[in-house]
């Protein structure tokens, strides 16, 4: 047994220094974020007390990241994703450990983790389905095609956090030949994730915003043609994710030239689905 304290520590001889922590690590490592996103919880550093083998959160200071173009971190450990890529996040803790002479000494010890930031690149099909919605007996349903889509990165991996996306139309106000149908209104910039899993959203295609209308008010075959462009928006960027020509009729909906549904996992890009 070695006496590490050499008289100036109060605990006497032992196998450890009081305040000595092993296996120090940043809890969220790697931390996976989407561009514009932030860590849900602040980063913290934990270690195992060398004297009693218990895990403890350690006071950390000097939070920083290796590349501020990829991510930044504030003094409390909150990480914000700035751009696609990978970098480090780090903090210093004060560790009471054995020095070269065998004395217990306080040393500032860096603890380093990895931050991966993903940019939405395109979309993938999760579910493509269609039919008539449920309406009351006194009304008539409007044919509906719904595509549940997933924002993915350039490697086809789902984005790790919800992202902001929006829809634009060309022409902006397509003429709808269905009575009272009006021009379709594209989806405004909003966060994904209100359906299915992280990074997912619904793309709903019909000839009328109301899915249940007065009986006999919508003839078969009426509708409009439009090209929808889904893109990142707000803090998630501006890049186009999916450019999709559609023919939306009261009894069928064609998406990217296909009137039947796209299979799960189909990748949809600026060049369409394939």
């Amino acid at each position, binding site marked *: 047994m070695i006496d590490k304290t050499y008289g100036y520590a109060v605990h006497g001889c032992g196998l450890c220094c009081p305040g000595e922590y092993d296996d120090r690590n940043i809890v969220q490592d790697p931390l996976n974020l989407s561009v514009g996103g932030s860590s849900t919880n602040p980063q913290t550093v934990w270690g195992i007390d060398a004297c009693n083998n218990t895990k403890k959160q350690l006071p950390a200071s000097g939070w920083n990241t290796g590349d501020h173009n990829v991510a930044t971190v504030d003094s409390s450990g909150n990480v914000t994703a700035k751009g696609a890529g990978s970098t480090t996040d780090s903090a210093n803790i004060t560790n009471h450990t054995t020095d070269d002479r065998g004395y217990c000494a306080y040393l500032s010890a860096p603890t380093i983790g990895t931050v991966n930031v993903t940019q939405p690149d395109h979309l993938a*099909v999760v*579910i*493509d*389905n*269609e*039919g*008539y*919605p*449920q*309406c*009351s007996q006194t009304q*008539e*349903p409007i*044919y*509906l095609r*719904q595509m549940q889509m997933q924002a993915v990165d350039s490697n086809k991996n789902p984005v790790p956090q919800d992202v902001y996306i929006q829809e634009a139309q060309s022409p902006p*106000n397509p*003429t709808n030949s269905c009575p*009272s*149908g*009006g*021009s*379709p*209104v594209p*989806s405004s910039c909003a966060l994904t994730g*209100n*359906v299915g899993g992280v990074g997912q959203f619904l793309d*709903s295609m*019909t000839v*009328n*915003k*109301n*899915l*249940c209308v007065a*009986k*006999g008010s919508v*003839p*078969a075959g009426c509708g409009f043609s439009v090209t929808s462009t889904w893109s990142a928006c707000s803090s998630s960027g501006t890049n186009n994710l999916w450019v999709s020509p559609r023919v939306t009729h*009261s*009894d*069928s909906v064609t998406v990217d030239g296909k009137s*039947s*549904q*796209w*299979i*799960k*996992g189909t990748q949809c890009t600026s060049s369409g689905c394939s």
Partner: protein
Amino acid sequence: MDQGHAMYKFWMLVAQNIPMLRIVIAAALVSSVGAAQTTTGTTGTGSVQGTVVDIGGVPIPGARVFVRTLRNSPSTEADNQGGFLLKGVPVGEVGLSAYKTESGYPYNIFAFFAVPGQDLPEVRVVEGQLTQNVVIRLGAKAAFLRVEITDENGTPVDAHLTFSRPDLVLARPDLRGYGDYRRAVAAKETILVPPVPFRLTALAEGFQPWYFGGDAWQTSKGLIRLNSGQSLIVPIHLHRIH
């Protein structure tokens, strides 16, 4: 738009010698065109508060509540007591629904997913006001249908499935089957289906159509009948078109 243009020409002819009337009519027509172009926009919203319960009236925590009668619907998640507060609901009559897939309540916007015992309310939403005490009763839990689709060599094939419910009929012969629900599936996939009789058809490019029940698919032998929570594996062997 054509009707609007004709109206514009007519009233301009009437008003061409009455300057004040011309101004008033022109302003009214501009307003009218603007309104026509925004028929799909939102003019105001209100909120709806209520509870999601099962067929026995027991709250369903965590169910996602949405407006089933609108193309783009706000949605929210019920709390631990099944209670919900849905904000940003467009004014007017709206139908509500909810789902919780992991508990056997599938996303049910399509008529195919209507089940016995459900009570999906329709409520009137007033701008800036809260509609209270709405109860969304989800009916019988779904059954589980697993399809395993292969070609003659046993190679997995993705396909398009059509689910048809003979009990759902829309009195519009010019529109496609009301009770039909179409969905693309991977070669092996499990789908939540309602515990009511339905027919199943599989289509894949380059293959002959497949019908559950084979040649007797239009008879009672072609109906799949499952109870809530029950599972059925359906092997689907497709044959190429030669």
